[in-house]
């Protein structure tokens, strides 16, 4: 019998995109378990292929977004997430989850700070797939749309040159096709060196189906939205690396 890969979604107080993200993962074939942070133990990740940090406002994000979530995660499970990655595990951070992965040093150095508009921005954006080999993006075309909804999505690096370096190295897996929030090099998503850790500000889980698009005459797929293909790429990467083990 085919065994479906297991994804764990970590839920902090204030995480609020876990249900729809779990739904998206299940739609493409994952089994999911949502684990409130108070119940997280190192053993939770045994037998798990993917850890997802979904969107929301962990602890309200009243101090820097993702900061408290990082501290609590480290307090509860120390370096387990890094070990999980080193052992071949996949990590996905969406929106607040991206902010938390960045805080946890699981992604190339950078900070997600207040949008240059000074506002929360809920809108659809066009993205450029800069890493077609990424396990998260392999089934997505060169450009596609996702919605964003964030106040702190502007990726900045200590030295502006670093961000340009991310474009060259391929760490900047996803970019906006125009300046949306002031991100250096218009970076929308980052991957680590292994390719198995990926964080992005846009919300793929909100564009799972065709009908999620704002335009009823959207020219894409008959059934699925672009977000489906991100999760589907991930599913296939996870299942093929499970087979190789």
């Amino acid at each position, binding site marked *: 019998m085919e065994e479906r890969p297991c994804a764990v979604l970590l839920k902090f*107080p204030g995480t*609020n995109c876990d*249900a729809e993200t779990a739904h998206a993962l299940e739609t493409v074939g994952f089994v999911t378990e949502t684990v*409130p942070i108070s119940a997280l133990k190192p053993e939770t990740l045994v037998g798990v292929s993917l850890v997802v940090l979904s969107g929301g*406002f962990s602890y309200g994000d009243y101090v820097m977004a993702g900061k408290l979530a990082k501290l609590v995660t480290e307090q509860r499970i120390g370096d387990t997430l890094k070990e999980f990655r080193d052992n071949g595990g996949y990590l996905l951070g969406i929106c607040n989850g991206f902010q938390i992965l960045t805080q946890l040093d699981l992604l190339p150095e950078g900070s997600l700070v207040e949008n240059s508009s000074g*506002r929360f921005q809920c809108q659809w954006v066009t993205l450029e797939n800069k890493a077609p080999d990424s396990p998260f993006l392999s089934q997505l075309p060169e450009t596609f749309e996702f919605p964003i909804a964030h106040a702190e999505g502007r990726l900045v690096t200590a030295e502006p040159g670093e961000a340009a370096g991310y474009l060259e190295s391929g760490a900047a897996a996803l970019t906006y096709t125009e300046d949306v929030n002031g991100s250096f090099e218009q970076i929308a998503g980052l991957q680590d060196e292994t390719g198995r850790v990926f964080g992005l500000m846009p*919300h793929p889980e909100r564009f799972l189906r065709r*009908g999620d698009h*704002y335009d009823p005459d959207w020219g894409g797929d008959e059934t699925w939205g672009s977000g489906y293909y991100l999760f589907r790429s991930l599913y296939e990467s996870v299942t093929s690396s499970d087979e190789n083990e």
Partner: protein
Amino acid sequence: MSEPTTVLDEIAEAPADHYRVLKISDLDGDKLLELSQFMKLSLSKEDMLAVQEIYKEWDREPTDVELEVIAQTWSEHCKHRIFGATIEHELEGEKETVTSLFKTYIYDVSKRIFDTKPGFVLSAFHDNAGFIKLDDELAVCLKAETHNHPSAIEPYAGANTGLGGVIRDILGAGKGAKPIGSLDVFCFGAPDTSMDNIKADDVIHPLGVMRGVVRGVRDYGNRMGIPTVSGAIQFDDSYIYNPLVYCGTAGVIPIKDIDKKVGPGMRVIAVGGRTGRDGLHGATFSSAALDTESHEEDQQAVQIGNPIEEKKAADFVLAARDKGLIEFITDCGAGGFSSACGEMLEECGGTINLDNAPLKEPGLVSWEIFISESQERMVLAVKDDSILELQKLADLYETEMTDLGSADGTGILKVTHHGETVCKLDCSKLHDAPIRQMKSKWELRTEPVEAPILESPGETLKEILSDFAIVSREPIIREYDHEVQGNTVLKPLAGATGDAPQDGAVLRISGSEHLMSMSLSLLPEWGKTDPYAMGAACVDECVRQLVACGSDPDKLAILDNFCMGNPDDERELGALVETVKAIAAGAEAYGAPFVSGKDSFYNYFETDEGPVSIPVTILISGMGIVEKPEHVTGSSLRKDDSVLCVIGSTKSELGGSVFARRKGLTNATVPETEFEGAMATYRKYYEAVKEGLILSAHDVSEGGLAVTLAEAAFSGKAGLDIDLCSLPMDHDASKAAILFGESPSRLVIEVAPENLEKVADLFEGLPFACIGAATPDHGNLRVEWGKETLIDEPIDELKSLWKNGLAQYY
């Protein structure tokens, strides 16, 4: 010892640390009123005399806790005493007696509709929100509230806790419904109001109110992860002193979890935030008028919300409900524990021990703990043997859970503190608040008004598209996460460019084939001249928008949320009575029952130049069932070769319109709504939707037909060639009325050319006409009258005016 200085000190028996017995039996009416005012009870002299009478019967004196509980129970906010009053009403000299507006026009009307649609409305009026059936397993609900007074004094916090409060209503509806979408409706002074026009100290400028309110809604809704999908703003000078902030939330629940009951032996537990001195007297404060002193004195009635506290409580409640651990639940809203426990133990009775309540700070006296409206608290009744499992869930979601007491079957609400009984009330005796006797009067002051000659309809259209009543709310909508939960199918901004306005919002419901629609309407400008016409048109517009976006016209439910100024003013109350009659007639004709409602009075302000009241303002919001995803219909033009048709008649009525206001036509006749004809067209429209014949549909409302056409074209798909010669209309309708009049019950629909004949056949015998076509040949809105060109303007330019109207102020 110092001499007694206040009425309270005079009558208090031997002072206890945490509560006092007050000797009221010998006080006369004036002294009783003084006591009410001193304690901020907001009870009238008649009310206080009635209280005195009750205690004479019981042969004892009340405690301060009991007086506070009675004040909460009898407050306008909780008891809706004006909607229950006996009103001597006079219309154009004809007199009648209305015994209870609520019973006559809301409850009885809805009850009749329930009977014609068995099984559709599953709960109404008695719970925190009314439920309608979505499918065999699930039900949906909607609730709207106002938070006007707090938002006037502290816009950010007022709106923040306004939304937080209505979300808790949903969490406390049935055994806990899941909040799935919110709406927000604001009435403000114009953003460009001059400071010289603000005639009182300490009043916050409308721009400050708007920014604070929007951010307050944003920070609560976004953090809770509930999409804010629907809304409206009205700007008018009459709202400078009394801004209105309506917040609404929709929810979904398994049908089996709607009914709830408290039984003897159950534990009463509190979950969520702690109790503090913040939010004292919110319920009674909101039942009184504002003045400059309010801005200084009533700060403690307004609080700062903590959405994460509420999010944790919400996660706990929904998990506990799914495990079957909740027997009864309600939220702590106005009146705090006293209202929540009072409601819960109303029939069963029980004991609440205030020593158990977790406090934010030490030293609170009994009444403060019992009536504090500290945010983010829910009260549950649960079985004794569920406590352990509930505690585990509370730990898991990191929310505080406390055992407050128990239900006991005595019918008596007993409250203990420091080992003493501080309150012992038979709640069944408290529901007979004195019925108010009121007077109201209304007469129309319309006069025949000559429609002005339209010099340049194109320029007038530009002027109207730039009016605050019409401009895009985009800068505000984008600050709200309207797509969290991933179910917002019809978004507030959509169309090919993702920024064109829509008539309503449609949400997919996880676990169901059906979808839920939401929409709303308010037309305060109409009500200034003709409140009856306003009420009728609001029901019509809300129903029409729900139908336009694909809802089944026979599966709609609506909510009435009233705001008005001074109910003791006969003409103001007269306007209210007329509005209520109209919405009742509309609801009955459309078979769209009321399932919930709320009212807010005393929205007037004592300025340096006398009192300023808001106009009677009714918000009709509604929900509907969309049977299939394919039925969801947006308001934006989709093709460049389609034809456009109008359903409904255009009358020569300009009153209440944006055009009339801009041209200074104050007393022009406001349009009447003919419900029966309208419902026939809506049913036909729905048939066309089901047959897949409708590409898009946009309702004709504020701004009139010209604005509707422009808005439909804002998707940027095509230019429009329109000829209005064949429009169904009054023979004497002026060009102004045709282009900018706001006759209700009209829709502009977009149809593929090959389907035109089918659609025309469907509307046979009803007001219907094909008025033009979309074209790829140019990008203009071209409106002709036979050979005469009325409007020929580039859609891009029109859109930029519309899109930037508010952006420059926000």
